[in-house]
């Protein structure tokens, strides 16, 4: 399965997202922000980083890139799209999913191995998990605080659009401990933590079993491959 990973000026985790796709058994395809060419991919990842230096607002300038028009069209037509961290911010700026992000409540960049609970295991990117499953995914950002107005939060919660929630520690002051969100259809998912950093033994978070052995993130990428096979 061809999975596109878009590189914007300032993208940092694009190569890591490509590696994750490869390890999951897919074929990563590099996409360029300035093109209108999705190269026939079947899913798209907007990776983490500091696109455009987070200038104006994190993800804002990227959301106006030429390729985002194509990404939006594809998403509206049902293509699976995953936004990781900065990618989540871009999806929110592009209004593909609800909410917005501001500076972490404590004003600092934070990197930690974050425990999450999977709230919605039906989306294109989470169908490999079970609802209520707890996973550990690395988190690293400065502008990760999820915010939405009361009405929107109510809607997201009510309609099962919360994809992940922080467990134990809310690392950035996100409303309702929301760590990730999906659209109504379940093909577009955004989350703050970085699943692409928990896909390879020896390079993921520590687990009780062994140092750096956590690979909970791999399921994101195998999920979308499974979903494609099922179609």
């Amino acid at each position, binding site marked *: 399965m061809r999975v596109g990973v878009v590189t914007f000026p300032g993208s*940092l985790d694009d190569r890591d997202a490509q590696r994750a796709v490869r390890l999951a058994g897919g074929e990563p395809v590099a996409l360029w922000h300035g093109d209108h060419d999705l190269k026939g991919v079947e899913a798209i990842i907007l990776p983490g980083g500091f696109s455009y230096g987070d200038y104006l607002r994190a993800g804002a300038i990227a959301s106006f890139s030429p390729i985002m028009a194509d990404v939006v069209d594809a998403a509206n037509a049902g293509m699976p799209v995953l936004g990781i961290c900065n990618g989540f911010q871009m999806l929110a700026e592009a209004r593909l999913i609800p909410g917005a992000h501001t500076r972490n409540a404590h004003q600092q960049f*934070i990197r930690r191995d974050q425990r999450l609970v999977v709230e919605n295991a039906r989306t294109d990117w989470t169908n490999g998990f079970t609802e209520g499953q707890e996973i550990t995914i690395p988190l690293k950002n400065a502008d990760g605080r999820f915010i939405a107005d009361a009405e929107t939060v109510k809607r997201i919660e009510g309609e099962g659009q919360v994809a992940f929630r922080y467990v134990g520690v809310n690392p950035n002051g996100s409303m309702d401990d929301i760590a990730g969100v999906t659209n109504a259809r379940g093909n577009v998912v955004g989350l703050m933590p970085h699943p692409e950093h928990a896909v390879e033994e020896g390079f993921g978070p520590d687990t009780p079993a062994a140092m750096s052995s956590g690979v909970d993130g791999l399921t994101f990428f195998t999920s979308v491959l499974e979903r494609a096979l099922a179609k």
Partner: protein
Amino acid sequence: MTDQTDRAPHDAEMIDVRPEGHVPDTVANAAATPDREQPYGALGLKADEYAKIREILGRRPTSGELAMYSVMWSEHCSYKSSKIYLRQFGQKVSPAMKKNLMVGMGENAGVVDVGGGWAVTFKVESHNHPSYIEPFQGAATGVGGIVRDIISMGARPVAVMDQLRFGDIDAPDTARVVDGVVGGISFYANCLGLPNIGGETYFDAVYQGNPLVNALAVGVLRHEDLHLANARGVGNKVVLFGARTGGDGIGGASILASDTFSSGGPTKRPAVQVGDPFAEKVLIECCLELFRDELVEGIQDLGAAGISCATSELASNGDGGMFIELDNVLLRDPSLTAEEILMSESQERMMAVVRPEKLDAFLAVVAKWDVETSVLGEVTDTGRLVINWHGEEIVNVEPRTVAVDGPVYERPVAYPSWIDALQADSASSLPRPTGNAVLREQFLELLGSPNLADKSWVTNQYDTYVLGNTALSFPDDGGMIRVDEETGLGFAIATDANGRYCQLDPKQGARLALAEAYRNVAVTGAVPAAVTDCLNFGSPEDPEVMWQFSQAVEGLADGCLELEIPVTGGNVSFYNQTGTRPIHPTPVVGVLGVIDDVAKRIPSGWQDEGDNIYLLGTTSLELDGSAWAGVVHDHLGGRPPAVDLAAEAQLAQLLHAGGDQSLIAAAHDLSDGGLAQALAEAVMRFGVGARVWLGEVLERDGIDVATALFSESTGRVIVSVPREDDVRFRGLCEGRGYPVARIGVTDAQSGSLEVQDVFTVSVDELRSTHRGTLPARFGATIGE
């Protein structure tokens, strides 16, 4: 032509580095007006240096030339006070040391062959003075600068590490500096997408007005991608690309780094640069694409002294001639004078030498990344660096006189008047605790002391995951990065320094720093291969400081020769003093090692139940300059611990063999705080307890319990070995004849560190003691 009369009137108290007159001083004018007064003193040049410049040129320098010489001949750029000593790094070199060295000293960074067609480039640099004035931007641009040095070798930067030294942790100003520096490093490095994989954070009152911010970066490249900073090929274009040039840091090199702060005196003109890591990230990707497409013949990054430095260095290293139209420089501030453009230290700029036939392709790549660029000129065969402004020659120099053949000083050296008394005041005369309660109390006091305490407050602000190749990072002893995803080939890197040891004996202190960094690489399972250094000292105009410097360099050079690992490059930072009080001599030594497969890496703490714990090496009474002496008795005196580099090499080989054969589950070196601290750290690493007994060691080495726990004898490592590997491990040690004693066993059930017949401390108490110190001063550690 820009009308320059409407520029803002400048503060009369600021040093005006602009020469008088709005019209730049041409070469013709300089020849015609030999008696014009020139402000060489304000630019940092001494009278004899100015005279020398006149002699070299055969006339007075133009204002532009004066500006160039003044920055390039400053201490920071020319190493004039240190050159005669640094030569040792290039001279004390054996054939074995040259074997894997692809690029040695003198280039932007050293390059080491690590096998499989891969090379690693690394270097450490200082950005001390700017980080005191403006901690955030000072530290941020320090990271930016060292990363650009790595890019300019043709490498992709893959990791950073920082060595930070601040004043007293409780002094009010310290929090300001700590907040800014850590924030700045976090901001810049995270935005570049570089994992921060180690380093040190240290507090001592001697650094109060002179914090040390050293930044190290490592890059990886294929052999064929190696680029050097030379301008070869007559007719090749000289291209400036990256950020536009503005008024950043004008005169920073000559004025800021080459002069001390007088306490309470008026601050010098703020010449601190502001960094834009996004611009640098884009520059990294742009450069890598240029390298991949082979569009660049030579490349140089712009740092201290900006265009003056880049042009003169490129020209010196190449065919010797270059012609530049300074008007072609893209400006952020159109009111800059020609001299200011030459001296500007605007960040995120690179200079490349490009074949004319490749220029279009070059410009296409640069445009793709939205990076601005302009062709400034070309390589010539005249042997002169000629710079024109508005059609007239304002600079015409022989580039080597600017960049290479700067002044070489032989500063007076004087044996310090105070050192004999200091060395006679040994810590062995201090009362050592004998009762268990006091031993336990002092152990915890050390564990919670600022320099031994947990640094998560700092390191939680750094990305360690980006690029997906981080095999080891803090709190392990060295950082380790995978280079080849197929074979697992990787490198390890560690940095160390101990200003207290160096104050007692700078030569020995430098050797100790080298031994410790070497050992820190060895405990990860890697083989030490090369060295970089950042030498932080007081004023070179103080003969006692020069003595310290000369001793430290000699100690380091001799040590490297003994260990057969070369110094590949580094940095000297002088003038770290307020008034007449210099900092402790603080040479930071970085050691790079190579590991065949990062899967063989060894963490610093044990994870399993029932492993045997061994202490490698012997212990004697060596508390002088120790953490124990400092924390418990506020004492600094005596002679630092002895170093046996041959033994360290033996130990390293033993560790490598053990790691290679997967016999060693954990290895942690002993240094500050001695055995007690090492045991605590190994327990806290994964929260697995241990039962330890000291009887055999006390008897074999003839020492008391306090010495066993707190002495800082070198050549020692604790390892944990799984039961099934025990026999083979012992065989390994016996075969190599290295002293080894079984001192304990790991105990996951106990939830504590028990030193039998001495004290027991629960993992919870260890952690709460260890983790409380920095948050108490700087705010809660987020996410704990």
